[in-house]
């Protein structure tokens, strides 16, 4: 029995998921009235991240919170995330200046899976409200791989449309929706997606992120089509590495931080998806479309 049996590493244990890289913020851009995009040099994250993965962002003196990766510049080792100001930690983040130090731990979780072939039809990318960051990254990634990408982008109002320019630059088609009709069609990103489907439903896959109410409507819409849907979920995360169990969504112990945040919508049927979320104490709260922090 001796010496100690070699322990095969769990693939889940990502080398950089356990310890933050602390780096100065390189650039801060106000991208909507409530959202700022932050870039940092974090070569190892930039090199390995795939769209849909996230980082735990340490705001020293405040908290560590999950943020989707919204872009990487692999050649420069740069990582970007975009944070909406919703509470104490994000407010502290918004007060920070270029050059201030923050920590990034990641990349964490499983990202979107892109169709192997680019010939099976275009990709439909749906971003509602604060859901744009991973979808913007996914769109750029897919386009770079040669996919045709159609985007459905929604927000409550015109000024809240997050990464609109990036989508319009990258994607072959973009349909905008605003709740108040200030831009594009009046409605949600799901209405915009329906619009795309009406034109031509031969999509190879649909990737989506946004408020959970929006994601459930989207799943319902897509149940009429043979298009596989992947959604990126948000749950309260304490560890981000599958240890504490705070982000579990079903009786099989599926962890959003480790097996997600991107899930095949089919898998979500027997889970809390669309029904419950946990707060910071671990208490389950019903998901009510109206209390989402970023509508869309």
């Amino acid at each position, binding site marked *: 029995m001796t010496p100690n049996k070699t322990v095969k590493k769990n693939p889940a244990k990502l080398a950089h998921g356990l310890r933050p890289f602390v780096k100065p913020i390189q650039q801060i851009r106000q991208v909507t009235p409530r959202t700022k995009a932050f870039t940092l040099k974090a070569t190892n994250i930039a090199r390995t991240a795939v769209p849909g993965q996230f980082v735990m962002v340490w705001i020293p003196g405040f908290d560590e919170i999950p943020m989707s990766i919204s872009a990487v510049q692999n050649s420069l080792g740069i990582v970007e995330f975009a944070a909406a100001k919703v509470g104490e930690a994000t407010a502290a983040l918004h007060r920070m200046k270029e050059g201030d130090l923050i920590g990034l731990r990641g990349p964490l979780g499983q990202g979107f899976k892109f169709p192997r072939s680019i010939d099976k039809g275009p990709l439909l990318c749906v971003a509602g409200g604060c859901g744009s960051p991973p979808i913007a990254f996914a769109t750029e990634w897919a386009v770079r791989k040669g996919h045709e990408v159609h985007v459905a982008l929604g927000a409550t109002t015109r000024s809240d449309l997050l990464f609109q320019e990036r989508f319009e630059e990258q994607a072959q088609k973009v349909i905008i929706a605003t709740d108040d009709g200030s831009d594009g069609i009046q409605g949600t990103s799901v209405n915009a997606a329906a619009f795309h489907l009406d034109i031509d439903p031969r999509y190879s896959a649909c990737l989506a992120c946004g408020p959970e109410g929006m994601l459930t409507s989207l799943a319902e819409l897509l149940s009429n089509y043979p298009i596989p849907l992947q959604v990126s979920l948000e749950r309260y995360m*304490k560890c981000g590495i599958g*240890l*504490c169990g705070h982000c*579990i969504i079903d009786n099989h112990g*599926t962890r959003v931080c480790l097996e997600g945040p991107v899930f095949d919508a089919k898998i979500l049927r027997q889970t809390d998806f669309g029904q419950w979320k946990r707060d*910071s*104490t671990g208490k389950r709260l019903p998901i009510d479309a109206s209390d989402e922090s970023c509508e869309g």
Partner: protein
Amino acid sequence: MTSETEAKPDSRLKVKIGTVELENPTILASGVLGVAAGGLISASNFGAGAVVTKTVGWKPRSGHPGPRVVGLHGDSMMNAMGIPNPGIRDYIPEIKAVVKQEIPVIGSALGTSPKEFARVATHLAKAGVSAVELNISCPHVGSLYLLGMDPDAVAEVVSEVVEQTEKQVPIWVKLPGSTDYPRLIQVAKAAQTAGAAALVALNTLPALAIDVDARRPLLGAGIGGLSGPAIKPIALRAVWELHNAGMNIPIIGVGGILTGQDAIEYLLAGATAVEIGTGVLTRGRAIFSKVCNEIGVYLTEYNIKHVSELTGQMAKFEVNS
């Protein structure tokens, strides 16, 4: 949803901790996967003989600000979760969902007074747990750690809990991560006298890690609890000291178990069963079935009929001076 290996039953591995009977001696440690019923159920599906719930108190706690975990050299880590929990009433449904599946559940309880410990324990007992584990030892909730180092205070908590739960459920006491043996043994003896049915050794050790760039502690709470392989030699020493103190009480070893070999070390030192926490990170949730299989291989190699034959079977030795 996952490809991790499933558990195979092995009757040689059945253990009894007092009156609590388990399929095997590997137990999911408190605070790992335990916020949700699904986490506890998954550990059982992956082979754990029992599961300990997240420590739960009377009132909800949000826990400490992040960062709440940090990885350290050699597969060890620190955490300062700060025992987030929704309070016993909102946690009961999670426990019931696990108990319903006939999984032995150990309810981990926290209180700000002996009465509160007892109130939480009573609710746990009603929910159908197989035992209650008193967390008197969390090192990043300062008041708890200090409580756990005070034999009189521990006796008071245990007595109150034993009395209020009316012996419906065995009470386990989880000892603080400390190297102060005279005191640890005093605490253990006080707990036993007050009616504890088993001792769990150890909780995480009080520790600090600093980010040299931020020039701050790497955990939001500053102080955290050290777990994983780093603490194994310390917890193993504690188990041996407790065993050697001649108390006739089952001991559950915990700290840094990654392999069957690690678990066997604890058994030889005097443990009846073991808990596993951080190992879930290193080897995945299947660590429970893996450790069980590795213990099985050892039993076969040495032609040992039953795992209980290992408990306390390390050769005797005298401590030198």
